[in-house]
């Protein structure tokens, strides 16, 4: 056994003997890295929130793709939403990288427990309703993020707050308005013509 280990170690050493795979960490000043820790932690956690929303939309898309549900318009709407949520997560990652963050503990930033809680919807309208509720909860979380990042007594992060307010919140409010409008149209359509209303609405979405 011992001999085996020695041989193994030797062969390993031979293969990589001349390869310089690892390089020294450069010495860069860090004064420019000024984000406050509570704020960084919050933003990192919000990456997961966006991915959770993404997988929730993915479950909606999968549901409406089913042969016994057959609402391709809704399915496409939710697949698109799932992609957008992933893009939001990536935007936050890029922001943190720009501010000099994410130089360590990146491996554990996305955990493998993203299975969505709800995977069945009684109708297109209930799914739109859930989507609107989900977006409002994300909006609240972004506001929570802003509060933490601007009220850190040692560092008010104007720049991140501006980015979150101008970019993320704008998209939240526009998205919420869009969902509310769609739900309103669908509910009115379905008031007297339930099955036909949802059928037609779905074809309009596609």
């Amino acid at each position: 056994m011992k001999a085996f280990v020695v041989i193994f170690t030797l062969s390993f050493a031979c293969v990589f003997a001349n390869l310089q795979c690892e390089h020294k960490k450069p010495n860069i000043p860090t004064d420019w890295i000024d984000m406050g820790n509570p704020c960084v932690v919050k933003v990192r956690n919000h990456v997961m929130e966006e991915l959770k929303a993404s997988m929730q939309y993915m479950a909606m898309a999968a549901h409406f793709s089913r042969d016994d549900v057959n609402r391709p318009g809704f399915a496409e709407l939710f697949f698109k939403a799932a992609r957008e949520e992933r893009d939001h997560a990536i935007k936050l990652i890029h922001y943190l990288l720009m501010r000099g963050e994410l130089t360590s503990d990146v491996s554990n930033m996305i955990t493998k427990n993203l299975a969505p809680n709800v995977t069945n919807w009684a109708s297109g309208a209930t799914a739109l309703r859930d989507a609107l509720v989900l977006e409002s909860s994300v909006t609240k979380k972004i506001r929570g993020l802003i509060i933490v990042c601007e009220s850190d007594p040692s560092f008010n992060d104007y720049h991140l707050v501006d980015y979150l307010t101008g970019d993320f919140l704008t998209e939240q409010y526009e998205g919420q308005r869009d969902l509310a409008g769609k739900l309103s149209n669908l509910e009115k359509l379905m008031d007297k013509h339930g099955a036909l209303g949802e059928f037609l609405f779905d074809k309009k979405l596609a």
Partner: protein
Amino acid sequence: MKAIVIFFALVAVVSCSDECYRDVVATCSNTLSKQQGVLTQCDAKYGAIENLEGDLQRFANSLLYRSFDFLLMATHYGNYIKNRAGFEKLFRGLSDDLWDDGINTIKYMTKRGARMNFNNIASELEQEKPSLELFELQAIGRALDIEKKLAKDAFDLHKAASGHKNDHHDPEVAHHLEEKFMEKHRDAIRTLAGHAKDLSSLLDGPDASLGLYLFDDYLQK
């Protein structure tokens, strides 16, 4: 009474391959059943999709979670200390591809009447806690291993669907995997293997850090 006899005679004639039609006949003659979804025999399932469903679900989840692994590897190369835009782009591309493959696998399952289950995750995926913050050649090695494992998963599915596992014969699933997944995946593996070869020769010598810089520059193109 006579009507019932005739009805059953009709049912007998349409036989076993007409389950949906029989379902329709039964449903339309029963004025009491107005609820939806009574046509239980009119689904999109055929072949062995029901027996392959679980493996397809695990495959789709693996694709999505591996896409997140690659996203984190890209993130690592995007920080100011690593600052390797080429490697960042490489891993981000692998992430995007697996993300698309995951979505396409879910869409495919539903085309065949199967359902997605996001809780059906391969056990090795849940248990492992590997570092994704690696030096360049190590990262290429890890990426190649991930891609080969996914290729193996697809091959295992293909083997079952090709009839090597009882009651799993479904040439349409096998064909889908070949056409929509395996060809692209073959190229990803070949590209990574080529990078491993180039990088290992560039790192073999005193110019390793210059080699890395130029290789990253090449990856950005």
